[in-house]
């Protein structure tokens, strides 16, 4: 076995095709220079050890970077990853839940559906996370290799060199006023859930009876036709809520404007809710009859309980939200 040729091969196989021959020739002549006239295998070994690990030598010859993403792009890569990952995960979760609710035929028990949603939700989070990570990394690894401007400065989100003026574009966010990503994406998530539930309420709300192995859907609680009469208002509220979440995402902190927006939205939502709930035709007859028999109360009592109870809970939570927004906006 020829150690010299093997060594040269170990170096050149790591190099681009076009350089191989020339570097091989030069290496061979260099190694021979290092050897005495009448050399033994020991001499060859000593010479090769002086040249060192063939991988190290080969990487020395290469112009390409030996890292996937270098210091120039690392900062913007991480920032983008942190920004895109939660968005992607939220969208996929919303999509998963929406698919389940819209595909729900009332046959299966709600608890089973919930477990299925959790299972699918987790797997879709993992899948979307991996996809996002993979594609973003690929894009930056390519950028790293294509960009030959050789600037050593890390580039920031404007893709420009940093200057003190950049600080003016960054808002200083005090901790007491800060809006967390969880709050923003949780809000979006909530909108998606109640929005879907609204359009499929007759499949979800109602009387369930425990069967031998699963829950049976006896009767829906609401008249879907009556409920759907309000769709333009619901759509408007969904749009406003999504707008609020995006506004929060951009502002990153509670401001006076945001607190006003939130207050107006909460008031509108409460008014529409009260309006819908107090519609005398909202609840299905079968439902009221079933419930009055079950609890042995009158129809009026039942409806008062349901309507008053839900209105109180709704308004209390709206007021809490309004106060919280205003308090945070005024904090310094």
């Amino acid at each position, binding site marked *: 076995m020829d150690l010299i040729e093997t060594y040269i091969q170990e170096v050149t196989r790591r190099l681009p095709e076009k350089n191989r021959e020339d570097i091989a020739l030069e*290496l061979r002549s260099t190694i*021979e*220079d290092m050897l005495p006239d009448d050399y033994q295998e020991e001499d060859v070994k000593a010479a090769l050890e*002086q040249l*060192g*690990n063939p991988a*190290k*030598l080969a990487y020395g*010859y290469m112009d390409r970077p030996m890292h996937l993403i270098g210091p120039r792009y690392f900062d913007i890569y991480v920032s983008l990853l942190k920004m895109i990952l939660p968005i992607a995960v939220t969208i996929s979760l919303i999509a998963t839940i929406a698919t389940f609710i819209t595909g729900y035929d009332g046959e299966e028990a709600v608890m089973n559906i919930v477990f299925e949603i959790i299972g699918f939700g987790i797997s879709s989070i993992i899948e979307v996370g991996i996809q996002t990570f993979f594609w973003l990394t690929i894009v930056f690894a390519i950028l790293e290799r294509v960009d030959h401007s050789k600037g050593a400065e890390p580039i920031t989100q404007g893709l420009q060199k940093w200057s003190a003026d950049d600080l003016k574009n960054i808002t200083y966010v005090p901790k007491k006023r800060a809006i967390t990503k969880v709050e923003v994406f949780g809000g979006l998530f909530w909108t998606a859930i109640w929005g879907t539930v609204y359009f499929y309420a007759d499949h979800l709300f109602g009387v369930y009876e425990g069967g031998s192995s699963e829950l049976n859907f006896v009767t829906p609680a609401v008249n879907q036709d009556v409920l759907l009469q309000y769709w333009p208002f619901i759509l408007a509220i969904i749009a406003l809520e999504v707008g609020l979440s995006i506004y929060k995402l951009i502002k990153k902190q509670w401001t006076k404007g945001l607190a006003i927006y939130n207050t107006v939205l909460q008031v509108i939502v409460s008014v529409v809710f009260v309006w819908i709930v107090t519609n005398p035709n909202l609840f299905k007859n079968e439902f009221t009859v079933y419930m009055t028999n079950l609890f042995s109360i009158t129809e009026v009592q039942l409806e008062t309980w349901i309507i008053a109870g839900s209105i109180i809970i709704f308004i209390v939570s709206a007021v809490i939200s309004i106060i919280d927004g205003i308090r945070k906006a005024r904090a310094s």
Partner: protein
Amino acid sequence: MSSLLNSLTTELRRGTLTLAVLSQLRKPQYGYSLVQLLEQAGIHIDQSTLYPLLRRLEKQELVTSSWDTSESRPRKYYVLSDFGVETFLQLKKEWMENSNQLLALLKGDEEDEDGFN
């Protein structure tokens, strides 16, 4: 030598290697002759660093290379280009200034140390 000191020394030397190599290339040299020249001057350079460095210098057009096939084995000779000579002289001047400044700093340091003793 501790590994920290080792890596600091390597870092310190790294910048000077290019200058050292350039200084020896006013006359054509082939890889191994350059190693020997530098060793004689007491400068140790890893061969796995030197050969890639020569090719990089060639790519940057600071040196030119040619194969000499007249002897028993072919050898690749490197020599400074005109641009290389010009760059070398500027680098050399830069180095002289730098080392004078550093020397002044280090000397001041020594006086301080004497003061403590």
